[in-house]
């Protein structure tokens, strides 16, 4: 058995596909490519495909991570890429495949933070935006409620900066993504006084512990 770490983009076609459904899509992607995915033991064997961190519905991503386990030790990463490229799946663009040691801890347990880009749909004043960001970062705490739970958003924001994208001003942010402490970019927009539905979100990086 080998363990392949896939870096891939999740594009428009799968933008509204949630994490559970994405798992199925990976399974079908591998089946179509004739790659022998390994199955877990037990009464209901499941294909061994592990995502690093769920991507919220409606988000795009330039750098998703997943580990897939294949029952063929002779495969090199380039073989995997060739097989997947031959049977492309709409919404998944493979960027990189590398072999990682079977004994390494699970991908999900190594995730530290996620980097996002939020591009505003409507024109926005860059000076105003910069002011709001400065004020937000200066606050010692940002008490918010999500799904009826109160929490402090501020410590989850590792970095937040204004930048310009093709469509105008945008925000780039690095948010904590540990299992018990995950920041969400829509919450950051809300804390800045915007509607969470004002921007297009793209995950640009997942940061792992060494």
């Amino acid at each position: 058995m080998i363990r392949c770490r896939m870096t891939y983009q999740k594009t428009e076609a799968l933008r509204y596909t949630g994490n559970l459904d994405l798992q199925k899509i990976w399974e079908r992607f591998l089946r179509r490519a004739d790659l022998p995915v390994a199955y877990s033991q037990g009464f209901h064997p499941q294909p061994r495909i592990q995502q690093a961190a769920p991507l919220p519905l409606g988000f795009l991503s330039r750098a998703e991570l997943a580990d897939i386990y294949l029952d063929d030790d002779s495969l090199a990463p380039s073989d995997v890429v060739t097989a997947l490229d031959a049977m492309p799946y709409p919404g998944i663009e493979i960027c990189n495949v590398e072999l990682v040691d079977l004994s390494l801890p699970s991908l999900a347990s190594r995730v530290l933070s996620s980097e996002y880009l939020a591009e505003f749909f409507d024109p926005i004043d860059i000076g105003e935006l910069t002011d709001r960001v400065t004020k937000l970062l200066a606050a010692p705490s940002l008490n918010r409620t999500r799904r009826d739970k109160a929490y402090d958003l501020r410590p989850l924001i590792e970095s937040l900066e204004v930048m310009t994208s093709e469509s105008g001003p945008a925000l780039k942010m690095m948010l904590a993504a540990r299992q018990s402490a995950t920041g969400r970019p829509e919450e950051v927009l809300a804390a800045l006084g915007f509607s969470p539905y004002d921007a297009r979100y793209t995950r640009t990086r997942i940061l792992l512990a060494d």
Partner: protein
Amino acid sequence: MSFDHHRLQLQLERILPTVQKPGRYVGGELNQVLKPWDSVETRVALAFPDIYDLGLPNLGLAILYQDLNARPDVLAERVYSPWTDMELAMRNNSIPLYSLESHRPVLEFDILGITLPYETLYTNALNLLDLAGIPLHAAQRTEQHPLVIAGGHACYNPETMADFIDAFAIGEGEELIHDIVIVYQAWKRSGKPRADLLLALTQVSGVHVPSLYQPGYTDDGLFTGLTPLHPLAPRKITKRIVAQLPPPPTRFIVPSIDVVHNRVAVEIMRGCTRGCRFCHAGMVNRPVRERPVAEILTAIQTALKETGYEEVALLSLSSSDYTQIVDLVDKISKHASENHLTISVPSLRIESFSIDLMDKLKGSRQGGFTLAPEAATDRMRATINKPIAAEQLLETARAIYSRGWSTIKLYFMIGHPSETMEDVQAIADLCQAVLSEGRKIIGKRASLHAGVSTFVPKPHTPFQWAPCDTPEQMQAKQELLRRELRGPGLKMTWTSPKDTLLEAWLSRGDRRMGQVIFNAWQNGAKFDAWQDQYRYDIWQAAFEAAGVDPAFYTHRQRAEDEIFPWDHINPGVRKAFLLGEYRASREQIFRADCRDSCFGCGILPTFAEIRRENPGKHWMCPEVPIRKVKKPLEAVIS
């Protein structure tokens, strides 16, 4: 062209995060076909008038989608009903109904084909037209609007929806759809008025254009028949069939979100020879035609490769009756166990042979084993013509429990003609007996689930003369069963009498129902097939406003010589045969499987030419000998 694609994309990007399951509204799935809009002559929108989750797996539309898109001169795209949250967002933002592939408004298509597999989709069909900006009434449409056609099982009684549909496609669509497209293209090139298109369509065998007929009624409200309004409109419309089932579709669209059936579906056989007297599908889908095993296996292989699916369903009305079922299942099961595939074979008969089949598939036993006895006394079984001895059911049940299944699902139907409370009590007794067999074998783990639906006398069946139970009768029968089927290991589900009544009104309606359906839609009726959306009060008011008595359609015993609003539709099975079966049911006479002896239902005379040209065992009907050419009389004399 007014359509602004970019604007729609921007609107959707803002709306979709606010609705449930936005993946329903974007398309872009694996295997969708997106052709350049201007590369074809004719554009067809194929609509399933309920949500994506239910519509996407529909096999009928998958066949038409594949067949139409195979033509270089046609593109076909999909349309489903938006759920209520999305509908609201679309109306608030003036977004018209659009297709999933190109996101084009339905109004820009040439043809809108709506599938109506069951009657409770009617208000949704109206809602789709409204969301698309197409006038609801066929009479109000002009050359600017798409041609609105409908097909599917519910269309065997087209009168109910006659006000809203330009043309009905009766029967099997594989060949018919191409004939319709050809007629449409010729008309479009001619630049003639819409009336000419409708008239040309009546010349296609299997197409019914309701606006070319005038219904008549007696003073008592009884239907007296349809009068053609044009000499070219045929008096009878015979359904279309294909002589041989064409190779099945394999390039299924794979949804990117969870839908009701995520699987490759292969129809192994069409039709059923058993002749259950309540069964609409069994009457209108004759003759029985099988697909060769090799063709099924090839289709499965190809479809798995195209889709990556992990489940395959073998579909038919009675899978045990497929003559090569053992061979087929043997071959599939080998492949399945090596590849983590699940194979499902619904519609198995009550016999130990069915369990052998399921055993071979080594599938999960979690879902339980489903059987459909439909009735529990010998008298009722003879009435409905579904003979299964109680002992045979118990024996099958014992085998199921002892081979690893802990749940048995039994489907029954209450409300069959002449049913008494004793017959209903027998359902409860039979369920108890089955469960106690299970207890003997696996103890308290054994469970039984009784699904009890209520009979609706359907057009073109032997029971079309029978009345429907009154709501009081339905309630009394259901109460008895609920009382008796209580306790550990027992579960019972039933159909609300109000749901049954709606199904009965809509399936037995005539053209006067059009006003009722319109009223109901106007007052907010939609998603009538959804228990939490269906509004009985709206329908009551709709009947009242239209001055139509709902009981006229449901609780009336029909005279043997009554003219039905669906008599102009010929499903191949003769009315005289159905009446004979109705009489036989009252005398409790069994009719055996018609593969063993032909009872002359009418299919062979109707399709004699087709059968003669397609001899062989794939049809379960007897062969029609090649006609000896008689010499003309003059020749003999001279």
